[in-house]
């Protein structure tokens, strides 16, 4: 029997008694083992056997007692979306083909030079009307279909402009065809413009076809992520391997994975070892060796060995699910730069309609003969050339491609706002321990002072540090263990944050910590300052041990700098970003490490709770600050910074305080994240410049602003080419982001 646990939204609860009613109804349903309903979150968590009970049964169990659970909330299968889009594209393609074919026939029969070669039939206005009608009302129905309900709500969009524009051209042409004598009596040549109406519709639909195809590619990254999920897992049940759908894997399941297979869900390796390709999640190209006790991540690829592991995260808790959620969230958010677009787009279409009316009036009143034809054609050109779509697409398409590109490289951006701010960052503060360094310090030197031996010093220090959770303490205890030194029992242990530890061993008062601790306890270490400073300039942290207020030894500990740290710092400096290191280490040690890495500015001896204040101080200098940390100990500093960047441990993504989460540990990714932000913002600005510039320049041209000087007018057919290419170019420009190398 396989049980699955799922959480659903519940609608309709008012009080605590509702909770009991729903829980009772759910647990009575055959196959349901446990049902917990939470009034505050309005969620029901149900554990059930999917072989016995379906989600529909859960739904009816809840609806029977007067409430509703949403079992299919939010889930739109990518296949359904793909299927619908493919269908839409097919319809569009057919409409484009028919309209352009019929439009070309009409153009052949009506265009001044071309028409001399055309069959007489095509020159007949009634035949032209016959050919244009299906284009106007069948192919062009899409514009009317959108315009009619929009007008009912007193709103308008691009479809409204196209519908009005082509309808004006079509009706004028019908009038000319039906009543040529009336038109001629007005001194106007009886010339219909069916070619304009049909070709404009054909070209706009063609533009829409290309736009839809390109737009589909902007969300490719998220589809790729969803597609990465394994479909089944080989679960061990009573020693037998059973293939079960991924949804049915529960926490604690033991799963076997063979070489070349995808790891289904997150877990901890139990038996065996292997090399795993995690590039799809972290962006790191080299496979990672995993042994017993290591974490394995769902959707990554097992390369060499066979192993079994215990599932620790399933369903929406897996790292892949969280990455997908983060990317989806970011793609649903709005960049602050879009506010200006919002403002303009709310006035755009009505203003264009007013400009079109003005164009008609001016051309009719002061334009050359035949003024009615000029007025009509220029009005149509204004309606057709205006392109609000390009403005609407400029920002979101770039955000979608940018955040998707980031996810592929292990750069997860919380929202569009974070992406926008990141491009302005000019100062980056790195937390030293665990970010620039591995965070696993090791004992490098033990200096005895007086009669104590090296091992005795280590023994005393390790005995004292055993009770401490500090990373330096861990290094000392580990060193003692390696040397198989038996530790003593200590009493009255006390850790003093920012100083060290104290306690009693063998009846003697011990202090172990930094110089500040010795100063506080009045332990004299003046004669050893040179020795201490020498170790510190080598980048080591020196701790002093005193027994009964007498200095007996020094222990130096050093943390290994990450391989990618120097290149990461250098990449940022090349971008003109000031790099700052923040650490609790003393100044000399910190400066030695900073020098190794090429960091100019060091904030040393900063206690953990002071980091946030230090960030604030740098911001007060007028700097836009990004703080890079592990996201656990430095959450307040990450939140205070303009952009908080959390470097993931390779497994843990859910870091709330961070604006950007880097899944891998390679420090060069920090520069890549900034670069991604800069490139995305540049694309957005280019898109907006193009979308606004296009409308600002070409609407006056369509109105005939160049006519008095150069006798240039814009034919509505060219207007439709420009309009179609304008939104395609915006989407294509966003897609170019995919090609950038980070």
């Amino acid at each position, binding site marked *: 029997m396989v049980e699955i646990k799922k959480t659903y*939204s519940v*609608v309709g609860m008012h009080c605590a008694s509702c909770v009991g009613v729903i829980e009772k109804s759910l647990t009575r349903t055959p196959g349901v083992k446990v049902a917990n309903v939470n009034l505050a979150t309005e969620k029901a968590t149900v554990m059930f056997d999917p072989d016995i009970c379906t989600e529909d049964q859960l739904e009816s169990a809840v609806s029977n007692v007067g409430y509703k659970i949403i079992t299919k909330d*939010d889930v739109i299968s990518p296949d359904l979306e793909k299927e619908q889009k493919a269908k839409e594209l097919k319809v569009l393609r057919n409409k484009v083909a028919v309209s352009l074919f019929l439009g070309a026939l009409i153009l052949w029969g009506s265009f001044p030079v071309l028409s001399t070669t055309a069959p007489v039939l095509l020159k007949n206005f009634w035949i032209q009307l016959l050919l244009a009608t299906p284009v106007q009302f069948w192919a062009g129905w899409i514009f009317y279909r959108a315009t009619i309900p929009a007008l009912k709500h*007193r709103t308008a969009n691009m479809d409204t402009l196209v519908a009005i524009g082509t309808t004006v051209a079509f009706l004028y042409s019908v009038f000319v065809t039906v009543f040529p004598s009336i038109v001629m009596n007005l001194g106007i040549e009886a010339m219909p413009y069916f070619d304009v109406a049909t070709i404009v519709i054909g070209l706009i639909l063609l533009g829409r076809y290309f736009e839809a195809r390109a737009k589909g590619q902007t969300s490719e990254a998220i589809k790729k992520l969803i597609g990465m999920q394994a479909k089944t897992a080989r679960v061990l049940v009573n020693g037998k391997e059973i293939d079960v759908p991924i949804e049915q894997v529960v926490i604690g399941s033991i799963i076997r994975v063979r070489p070349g297979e995808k790891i289904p869900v997150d877990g901890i390796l139990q038996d065996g070892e292997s090399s795993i390709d995690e590039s799809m999640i972290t962006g790191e190209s080299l496979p990672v060796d995993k042994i017993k006790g290591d974490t394995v991540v769902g959707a990554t690829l097992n390369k060499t060995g066979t192993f079994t592991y215990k599932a620790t995260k399933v369903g929406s808790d897996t790292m892949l699910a969280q990455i997908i959620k983060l990317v989806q969230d970011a793609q*649903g958010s*709005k960049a602050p730069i879009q506010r200006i677009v919002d403002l303009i*787009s709310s006035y755009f279409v*009505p203003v264009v309609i007013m400009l079109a*009316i003005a164009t008609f009036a001016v051309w009719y009143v002061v334009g050359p003969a035949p003024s009615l034809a000029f007025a009509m054609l220029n009005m149509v050109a204004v309606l057709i050339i205006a392109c609000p*779509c390009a403005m609407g697409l400029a920002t979101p398409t770039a955000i979608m491609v940018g955040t998707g590109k980031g996810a592929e490289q292990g750069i997860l951006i919380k929202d569009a706002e974070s992406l926008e701010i990141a491009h302005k960052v000019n100062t980056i503060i790195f937390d030293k321990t665990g970010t620039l360094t591995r965070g696993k310090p090791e004992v490098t030197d033990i200096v005895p002072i007086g009669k104590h031996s090296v091992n005795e010093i280590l023994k005393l220090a390790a005995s004292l540090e055993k009770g401490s959770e500090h990373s330096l303490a861990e290094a000392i205890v580990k060193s003692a263990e390696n040397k198989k030194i038996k530790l003593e029992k200590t009493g009255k242990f006390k850790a003093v944050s920012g100083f060290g530890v104290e306690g009693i061993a063998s009846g003697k008062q011990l202090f172990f910590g930094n110089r500040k601790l010795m100063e506080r306890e009045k332990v004299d270490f003046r004669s050893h300052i040179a020795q201490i400073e020498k170790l510190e300039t080598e980048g080591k942290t020196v701790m002093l041990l005193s027994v009964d207020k007498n200095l007996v030894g020094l222990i130096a500990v050093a943390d290994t700098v990450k391989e990618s740290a120097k290149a990461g710092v250098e990449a940022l400096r090349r971008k003109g970003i000031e790099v700052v290191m923040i650490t609790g280490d003393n100044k000399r040690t910190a400066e030695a490490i900073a020098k190794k890495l090429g960091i100019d500015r060091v904030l040393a001896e900063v206690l953990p709770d002071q980091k946030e204040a230090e960030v604030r101080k740098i911001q007060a200098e007028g700097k836009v600050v990004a703080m890079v940390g592990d996201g656990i100990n430095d959450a307040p500093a990450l939140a205070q910074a303009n952009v908080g960047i959390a470097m993931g441990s390779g497994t843990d993504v859910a870091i709330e305080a961070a604006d950007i989460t880097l899944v891998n540990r390679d420090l060069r990714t920090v520069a890549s994240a900034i670069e991604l932000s800069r490139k995305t913002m540049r694309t957005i600005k280019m898109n907006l410049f193009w979308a606004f510039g296009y409308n600002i320049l070409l609407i006056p041209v369509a109105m005939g602003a160049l006519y008095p000087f150069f006798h240039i007018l814009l034919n509505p057919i060219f207007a439709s080419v420009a309009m179609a290419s304008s939104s395609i170019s915006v989407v294509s420009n966003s897609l170019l982001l995919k090609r950038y190398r980070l």
Partner: protein
Amino acid sequence: MTCYRGDLMAIDKILVILFSLMSTGFVYWFFLMKNSKDVVAAGKSINIIVDGGYQPETISIALGSTTTLTFLRRDPSSCLEEVVLPDFKIRKFLPLNKKVNISISPKKAGEYEIVCGMNMFHGKILVK
């Protein structure tokens, strides 16, 4: 009395000017002076029809509760194929004629927007 062309503006031109001014005024009134005071209280769930905009256009929901917005797109226009609730970081594809549920739990009172993927159609959520 004879009216000469060139001396006085022809009547058709005057009519065109008058008609244009009236139409411009009408367009301004029709689109830009829209009164969107019709607020529909959502309760725990509400159906929103997507057809040339969002119907109802403005909904109100109570602060601190979860409300399920059920969108049903009837409009085939690609403009409306996605619905975006930027304040809740939600961007969702709306299949034609298929209901899509989106649950939101606003933590603050205020005005939140519903927009289409191209930012042309707007709706409002008032949280009180």
